[in-house]
């Protein structure tokens, strides 16, 4: 673990991407194969199967540290990370050894077969053999979410530097459902064509937000426009008679959307589509709130399938007849996609996402203004001669979203943040007027600058009316403009409404608290834009 901890420390001590890449490339050049494989796995979101629950981990750590469990629980949100909280709490290790990363991962994997008392003994033993940084990493292996400032992209770049292979080739090799426990570094990275896994997706191409006026993009005829749907990005793979559906987060979500199983009846094997999964009422998408209950479920009850059926609105064709089309220009890929989907019956779970015709940017701007009526968030702009790249690359694909909806609201509760923001008040509850009462309707955490958070923190300390545990009720004095992407009715909330992606877009220091918006105003917005 020493080498891996040294790698972590090197990465953690810099904010420069080049320095991180260099440290990681150095590790890939030196480490043994099992450690390299697991490092790739960890930085691409894979981890060993969880051997103990985080509840057990908390209890054992509190016991070892000699503090009551509640004190660990109180410390956790302030530290912001459970693995770190535990590493900081535990008494110093009494022993130390140099076992590598893969040894500790195998140790964790072996726990599954043991009874709980033995598992506990083995975890305590591990804690007693690792220093603070190593312990933190060991705990991270258990608690998951190995986010330490290294993206998969950065890891892939470092691997490219260390192996001399092309980044795009490596990115593709690392996609899909491989399991570090079942493969080897050689098979995954070094072998010529590693097994051609039928479910393996292509890396997604991601768009940048368009902040400049579209006129800067050049001639309208070089561009394709389509709706930017408010659904889940998905890649549908049809190979060898079966189908696989991947989310943008590289999660295999085939089972969650059984509607798409019928795609194999309509399309030939060797077809890969990129598109948006949306709930569909027969003629247009339904609101995102109807899709939400389906995202978390691995098996879908019949009632839900009926109430919120999904389809894939396809907008790109990445593979046809088993051939990789990504280097072909969009205009050709799109033509083949349209031809492929043209003859499908209306009840097929697949449709081509329509193109928006326009001859001038102003025409498109007018069309975009009506995006909410289409249940879209705005429009996508894609250069007609662009290949399908991987990752977020500037230049060829842009999302041109509608301006968010906004409401002016009064801050009434504040709570300290955690992690990066442990000593600042950053989590606020906002209210609107209902007669003389302030009715809470949303929380927001983001949107202010660090300087603004510092200013409001000092104000909160001096203007606390009452404390409810970590939550402080503050003097209703400050008005913030809250921006959000959608609004819907919600019986669970006191105000009767719920917002999508609320954030603080402006601190309205110019606005007296009496002039904040009312609940009536929100209800009108619900009637106009609600779903």
């Amino acid at each position, binding site marked *: 673990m020493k080498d891996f901890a040294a790698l972590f420390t090197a990465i953690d001590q810099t904010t420069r991407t080049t320095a991180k890449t260099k440290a990681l490339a150095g590790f890939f050049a030196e480490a043994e194969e099992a450690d390299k494989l697991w490092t790739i796995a960890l930085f691409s979101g894979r981890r060993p199967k969880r051997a103990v629950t985080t509840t057990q981990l908390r209890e054992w750590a509190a016991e070892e540290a000699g503090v009551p469990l509640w*004190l660990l629980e109180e410390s956790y949100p302030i530290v*912001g*990370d459970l693995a770190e909280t535990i590493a900081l709490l535990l008494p110093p290790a009494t022993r130390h050894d140099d076992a590598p990363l893969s040894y500790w991962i195998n140790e964790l994997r072996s726990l599954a077969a043991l009874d709980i008392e033995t598992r506990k003994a083995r975890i305590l033993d591990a804690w007693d053999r690792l220093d603070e940084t190593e312990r933190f990493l060991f705990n991270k292996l258990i608690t998951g979410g190995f986010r330490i400032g290294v993206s998969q992209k950065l890891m892939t770049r470092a691997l490219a530097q260390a192996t001399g292979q092309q980044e795009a080739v490596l990115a593709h090799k690392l996609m899909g459902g491989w399991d570090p426990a079942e493969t080897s570094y050689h098979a995954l990275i070094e072998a010529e064509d590693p097994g051609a896994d039928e479910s393996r997706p292509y890396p997604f191409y991601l768009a940048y937000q368009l902040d400049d006026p579209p006129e800067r993009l050049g001639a309208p005829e070089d561009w394709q426009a389509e709706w930017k749907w408010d659904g889940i990005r998905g890649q549908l793979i049809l190979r060898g008679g079966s189908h696989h559906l991947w989310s943008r987060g590289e999660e295999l979500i085939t089972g969650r959307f059984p509607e798409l199983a019928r795609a194999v009846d309509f399309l030939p094997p060797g077809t890969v589509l990129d598109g948006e999964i949306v709930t569909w009422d027969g003629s247009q998408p339904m609101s995102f709130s109807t899709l939400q209950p389906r995202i978390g479920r691995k098996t879908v009850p019949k009632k839900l399938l009926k109430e919120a059926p999904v389809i894939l609105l396809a907008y790109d064709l990445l593979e046809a007849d088993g051939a990789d089309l990504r280097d072909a220009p969009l205009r050709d890929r799109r033509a083949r996609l349209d031809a492929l989907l043209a003859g499908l019956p209306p009840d097929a779970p697949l449709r081509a996402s329509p193109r928006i015709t326009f001859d001038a940017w102003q025409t498109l701007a007018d069309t975009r203004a009506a995006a909410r009526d289409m249940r879209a968030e705005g429009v996508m702009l894609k250069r007609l001669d662009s290949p399908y790249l991987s990752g977020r690359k500037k230049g060829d694909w842009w999302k041109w979203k509608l301006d968010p909806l906004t409401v002016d609201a009064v801050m009434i509760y504040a709570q300290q943040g955690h992690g990066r923001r*442990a000593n600042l008040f950053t989590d606020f509850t906002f209210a609107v007027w209902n007669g003389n009462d302030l009715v809470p309707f949303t929380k927001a955490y983001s949107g202010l600058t660090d300087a603004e958070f510092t200013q409001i*923190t000092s104000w909160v300390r*001096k203007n606390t009316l009452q404390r409810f545990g970590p939550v402080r009720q503050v003097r209703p004095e400050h008005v913030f403009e809250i921006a959000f992407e959608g609004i819907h009715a919600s019986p669970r909330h006191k105000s009767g409404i719920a917002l999508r992606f609320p954030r603080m877009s402006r601190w309205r220091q110019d606005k007296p608290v009496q002039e904040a918006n009312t609940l009536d105003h929100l209800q009108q917005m619900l009637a106009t834009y609600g779903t």
Partner: protein
Amino acid sequence: MANVLTFRPEGIYCPAGDFYIDPWRPVDRALITHGHSDHARPGHARYLATHAALPVMQHRLGEITAEGIGFGETRRIGAASVSFHPAGHLPGSAQIRVEVGGEVWVVSGDYKTTPDGLCEPFEPVRCHAFITECTFGLPVFKWRPQNEVAAEVNAWWAANAAAGRVSILGAYALGKAQRLLHMIDADIGPILTHGAVEATNAVLRRQGYPLPDTRHVAPDLNPKDYPGALVIAPPSALGASWARRFGTRSTGFASGWMRLRGVRRRRAADRGFVLSDHADWEGLHQAIRATGAEKIFATHGYTEIFARWLNSAGWDAEVVPTEFGGEEDEVVDSPGEQAPAS
């Protein structure tokens, strides 16, 4: 238990002596534990502080009506006897002991229990009630010995010097900056200081506190004349244009908060050194035990959690209802805040 001290909107108050301790609103008579701005505020009619703390206070607050007192010296104010005892937080910092009719209460101010070699070391004071800070009152806060942190800073500085980089270390102008100056190996290279740090250095040097030679980064100073230098500046100067003059540089920040990875990352400095002038979890307990107090009041920091813990561990503890803004040395520091002019 008689209330030797009470809590008023202006601050901690002694009815028997009609004075306040570290008040946050202007009062007639203020006893001040130390010169940080969240303890020594402007606007009081009369100040009383240790002889060692006064010069910095006068430097920061300008013309004030102030009296000095020696450590351990007893003074009668009304029906109360007061004395000041070293708090080990920074040079001149004190705990304030107040005795009324045989009942003793102590206000800790800010303190650390481990000696740093520069300031007067912390002295436990027996009392019936102890009003303690708890800035780092969580069990995750544990400090390593100062010599280990010094070795880390030295190694970082030496490595930067060898690679042709300037090392810029962010530290609060009063206290942390001088502690760092005192603990590092001044033979590694030249030491430069931001104006805010150098002004405080000058005051403390005149008082006789031993600090290594430093050079003020005046507008006409050419950084190229000082290769491999260590620069000590307030945290807010690190991200400001002020720091750009040093060209290729590595930035570091020294604070107890650097113990938390999340805060370390928010600072966006290359290195975070875990170094605090406040007591850690163990230090707070040592101090509380040494007072023998039966009543504990928690202030400044994770007060609710700390008081709850003390109660569960057998003490009688409650939270001081305080009004206070950002604490100068440890709590809030904003990258957006302007650096004082150099």
